[in-house]
């Protein structure tokens, strides 16, 4: 399931309090980005990321373990935390 409206809004607020706050778009535009990314993750992204993991690891790892790896990988690439 997708995040709730409140969870999405909280994500936007958290981002705006970081040094990566995007200044060239507005708050309504920023929530549209959050909406689009969460919708994409629900419809396509999660399944695609899961399918990229080879077997038998895919069947052994839990969703939480896979999610943590995904977050760690993005952080290593973009240094976001």
């Amino acid at each position, binding site marked *: 399931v997708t995040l709730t409206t409140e969870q999405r809004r909280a994500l936007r*607020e958290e981002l*705006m309090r970081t040094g990566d*706050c*995007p*200044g060239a778009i*507005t*708050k309504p535009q*920023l929530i549209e980005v959050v909406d689009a990314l969460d919708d994409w993750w629900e419809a396509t992204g999660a399944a695609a990321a899961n399918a990229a993991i080879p077997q038998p690891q895919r069947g052994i790892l839990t969703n939480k373990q896979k999610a943590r790896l995904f977050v760690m990988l993005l952080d290593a690439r973009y240094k976001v935390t």
Partner: protein
Amino acid sequence: MATSRMLLTPFSAEIPASNFPGLSTVNARPVLAFDASTQETAYWTLIAPQGLTGALSCVITYMMASATSGNVELEVAVEAITDADATDLDATASFGTVNSSGAITVPGTAGYIDQVSVTLTNADSVAAGDLLRISISRDADDGTNDTATGDMYLLIAELREA
């Protein structure tokens, strides 16, 4: 000709128990950082200057931390208490109706200043010698008039008499 009456600086601000702007510095300049999501408020206590008779406006000098598009809305309220008024300060705040700037387009470059004049139509009938309190807020939860992302930095505000 307008007369400058009082200056409200970040270091002289009074901070409520919750939902207050953070006191910070930007390039060694003291600022109050107003959040983009939560409506935050700061107060200043003054004595209304002698000779005050005209209409007041509050000119707020600010800059944005990162935003280069969108707008902000600022709200200014006045509380004026005259000697012997029946106002129990222990338990009461008696601000007049809020005066709003409406939507103000932020500068196209973060770090550039903008000066917003908010006419204090509702000045709580302030008169010379009154105990005066000014509140300034960013109406961050107004989805229509406050659309800029990130913090708004208040550098200083000036009370002007028309």
